[in-house]
């Protein structure tokens, strides 16, 4: 599968208003009520890269237990994509922003 190909498939509940968020600066259209994870994975193949191996990561448990789905805000705050609901204007990064150590995740 190409990394650009969406991973998740919407099977129901598609009749919801859209919300625009930004991922690495690019606009992504999501639906109201989507988790950040679903918003990203219905448009792309992964959420981030593993810091311990070569592979892309796309979450694992979807129930806030594994922490595989971390994304970052521009301030360096960590978001757990599986239990963060999207809201208009949310802007996230697939890697921690470059910051001096105390602020860095």
């Amino acid at each position, binding site marked *: 599968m190409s990394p650009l190909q969406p991973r*998740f498939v919407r*099977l129901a509940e598609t009749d919801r208003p859209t919300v625009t968020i930004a991922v690495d600066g690019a606009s992504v259209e999501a639906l109201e009520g989507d988790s950040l994870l679903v918003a990203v994975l219905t448009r792309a193949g992964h959420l981030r890269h593993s810091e311990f191996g070569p592979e892309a990561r796309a*979450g694992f448990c979807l*129930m806030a*237990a594994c*922490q595989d789905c971390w994304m970052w805000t521009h301030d360096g705050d960590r978001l757990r994509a599986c239990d963060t609901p999207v809201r208009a204007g949310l802007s996230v990064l697939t890697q921690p922003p470059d910051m001096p150590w105390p602020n860095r995740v």
Partner: protein
Amino acid sequence: MAEPRVIIVGAGPAGVRAAETLVAAGLRPTVVDEGRRDGGQIYRRQPEGFARSSAELYGTEAARAEALHATFDDLRPKIDYRPGHLAWNVADGHLHVVHDGSAEALPFDAMIVAAGATDRLMPVKGWQHAGVYSLGAAQIALKSQGCAIGRRVVFLGTGPLMQLVAAQYRKAGAQVVALLDTSRLWHQIRALPKLVSRPDVLAKGVGLAASHLLAGTMVRRGVTPVEIFGDADGGVSGVGVRLVSGRDLRLACDAVALGYHLRPETQLADLAGCDFTFDAATRQFWPVIDEDGRSSVPGIYLAGDGVRIQGADGAEIAGQLAALAVLADRGRSAPTEQISRLRQQRRAMERFRAGISEAFPWPHHLAAGLAEETVVCRCEGITAGELRAVVHDKGADEMNRAKALSRVGMGRCQGRYCGHAAAEVVAAATQLSPAVVGRLRGQAPVKPLAIRTRRAAP
């Protein structure tokens, strides 16, 4: 007498029924749940604005789900409900919670922990690829977000949930490539004497299994998982297993739902100092409880799937029993007839639980056969070979030492998804029983906290 301060962790079936019982006795418990909405796992509520009916979401359990949600809606004004609050530590009679980055310590006289379960996992080569999800995750994607985890999904593992989720996927219009089950039909037949303790649930299970055959879905039993194929950028591309016949089967797919039944979330009980015991049948440590859910620590009660995987109906019973135990221990009058009826129902649930674990056994034997390069810890990419090396080279034959030396279990999931399997890898490498190898000790915080957590203003 002053009103006892009772905290319930978890607003699933166990926690809701516990709260209802306490409210009926005139108390106002605090209910802490990390989730934004009540319902817990099985009766998880979908976000506001979603329109599917209970029948679509909960199938045969729709009436029970609605009843639980209605009970909770009624309780809301009578309890101190704290949604979005993670309970991350228990110390000195306080439950430590964090909500939106602010921390608070809640004092309690009694606490009922009803924290539910997570998937029990056995690693397989390639399970770190994007597109491999826990079986529970596959269900959550569908239930809570109306999504499938991929276009062509393979279900790999074992357990009653695997049959159910695969059926839910098929019904929702997803392509189920195959159910590859490590259990054998004779496991299920052997467990029948125990499974008949809940004939209705047994019938549903048989119906589910039959539905896959009727739909023409590929079902293979007794498989040995060999590899999840894929690459670093694109994620999963297929699954390879060895069949009973000895033949290899390779299937193309873009998603895998992986799981071997469930394991209780016991970290809070551990932090509270509860005694644990090894259960030889399921090969895991779990907290010691009496028939009402009292732990070894006075004032700490454990209920639901967070202590024994008895399922949702069992959780509702356990929640009531734990609440009645709190009341009895606090000198309130105890309705003896109700208690003995609940205990009796609970015994049937316990018998069924034991039957399920025999019917869908934890495939511990796979640990010995994991190829050296198989990732055991998904969080930090630590392999079976690296774990075995600390056993053989450094004599780490106890889990916490093996963890300290290899870092397996130290990553961000804190051993939830590798702990049981890592213990089996160490047990196989040392030829010791996992009862001797031991278990990863729970550590606070039970989940990583946001970096900017601060103390809440008093």
